[in-house]
């Protein structure tokens, strides 16, 4: 009995087990892949004539996106000959995805577009999802603020976006006491006294605070400075797509518009559709938020998506005058109503 023969015995067995393990893992992976590939092929064959379109959300699905899911559920995209995929990107990456052709459309925000447009990123806003800016300052009622001015010198939770900070300073006053950080749950953070106020969206955080029976004040930015009735959120697309395939943009927007018009009229059913496509969403919050947001999709004439160029330009003028960008942006920079 030499060492080598013992080793040989040992090695022979362990070697084959390793091989077996590898094969098993590969087989499992392949098996797991198989149905997916199949269904892909199937749906491709089925949607033979449909044009593939990728729409990137701004982040996780919420009531700003309901119209897209309604259009998907009701087949409005199919009517236009489109096979739309709605994807969830990482936070604040929709513009990069659209600029790099990883997505055909994206959900984005006018203030976030500023630096992108300044750098010449080829994106254009083609439809406004909400007609008025839903952003405002959220604070606990117990703080006793009657207007944003009363928040001057109080602790402000910031994610350190220069434009947002300048916006807040403009309505509050120059004494910004910054508490940097990402507040996952604004209501809880306020209750925990981590800061006194935060820039938030009424349609989600404001409604959530109400649902939690937490008494809060919400000051819409636009009520204190008309310049801040900028557009958030908006639908953006790549400039190249606008040039090469304007028909596709028009068709997609037509389907989206139909979805949002439906969601405006049927908040409850639409909230259900949103939750169907994103079942991880809190149902009560989705419904409460939808009931509010549905009133915000359309303008006074019952139209969806139209921009008021004056409001758009007014905000970028202000951004330039604040010294937040080096060169002024031209009129109607990165925005158009032409494809609605």
């Amino acid at each position: 009995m030499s060492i080598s023969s013992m080793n040989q015995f040992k090695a022979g067995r362990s070697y084959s087990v390793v091989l077996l393990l590898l094969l098993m893992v590969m087989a499992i992976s392949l098996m797991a892949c198989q149905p997916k590939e199949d269904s892909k092929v199937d749906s491709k064959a089925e949607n033979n004539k449909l044009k593939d379109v990728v729409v990137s959300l701004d982040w996780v699905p919420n009531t700003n996106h309901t119209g897209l899911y309604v259009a998907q559920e009701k087949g409005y995209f199919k009517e236009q000959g489109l096979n739309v995929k709605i994807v969830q990107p990482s936070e604040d990456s929709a513009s990069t995805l659209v600029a790099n052709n990883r997505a055909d459309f994206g959900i984005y925000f006018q203030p976030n577009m500023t630096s992108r447009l300044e750098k010449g990123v080829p994106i254009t806003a083609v439809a406004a999802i909400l007609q008025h800016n839903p952003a405002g300052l959220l604070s606990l009622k117990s703080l006793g603020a009657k207007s944003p001015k009363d928040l001057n010198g109080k602790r402000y939770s910031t994610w350190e976006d220069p434009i947002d900070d300048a916006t807040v300073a403009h309505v509050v006053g120059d004494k910004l006491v910054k508490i940097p950080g990402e507040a996952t749950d604004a209501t809880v953070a306020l209750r925990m006294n981590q800061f006194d106020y935060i820039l938030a969206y009424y349609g989600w955080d404001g409604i959530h605070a109400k649902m939690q029976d937490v008494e809060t004040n919400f000051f819409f930015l636009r009520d204190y400075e008309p310049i801040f009735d900028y557009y958030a959120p908006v639908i953006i697309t790549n400039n190249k797509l606008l040039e090469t395939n304007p028909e596709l943009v028009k068709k997609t927007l037509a389907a989206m518009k139909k979805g949002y018009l439906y969601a405006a009229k049927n908040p409850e059913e639409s909230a259900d559709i949103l939750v169907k496509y994103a079942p991880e969403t809190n149902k009560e919050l989705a419904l409460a938020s939808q009931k509010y947001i549905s009133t915000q999709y359309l303008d006074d004439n019952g139209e969806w998506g139209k921009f008021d160029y004056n409001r758009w330009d007014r905000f970028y003028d202000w951004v330039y005058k604040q010294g937040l960008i080096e060169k002024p942006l031209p009129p109607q920079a990165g925005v158009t109503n032409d494809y609605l």
Partner: protein
Amino acid sequence: MTSNRKRPQVSRQVISLIKSHILVILILAIWQICVSMQFIPDYLLPSPLQIVEAFIEDFPLLMQHAKYTLVTAFIGTTIGLIISFVLSICMDLSKTVKELIYPIILLNQTIPTIAIAPLLIIWLGYGITPKVVLVILAVFFPITIALVDGYQSVSREHLNLFKSMKASKYQLYRHLKIPSAMGSFFTGLKVALSYALISAVIAEWLGGYYGLGVYMTRVRKSYDLDSMFAVIFLISFLTILLIGFVKWLERRMLRHNYL
């Protein structure tokens, strides 16, 4: 005779099982009491029972998402294993290759996942590819290092013996180096697997259609802390399960070593 010897062993096993879990049970009980008595408000920390409820309510959804995450982790680990084997043998065969590759592997390990994941998604799309790449990046380091160390732990006597018997390179690896490296390989594999799942989840945070990471971001934005904890526990449980499987495999394969 055997049954007599087995019985105390079984009861001892049960006792040790309870012993090893009593702390966990105690912590859960205290946790539950603290939340129920409202020492800690449940909007800050949901109670274990709330988490279980959320888990049961979302079970089918969690399983659907878990499937995608596990597939990503499996494919990534498999490819990572293959790369590791090839790379480790190349590094063991040639000192130059080792000196060239080692710093790169080390550097790769220092890249924060969260920084490159968004780039991977821009380069490779939202499908499974960028996620698998991320898992490969995470797993191949511990496995490669473990294998290289394992090959080098072979004693000089064994090497000399193989040389004196004029063993070919293939035989050297097949019968000596790879078997000897198995012990450290499994240590590396256990570390790698614990990275694999969490890397897949992080990749999914950054975009995609399905996966436990996608579930996580969505319940977070819905402020459903109980679902958040449910998915965290599920990920921990799956990781423990995977590592348990590797341990079992290791025991089976390396049994002869303890003879």
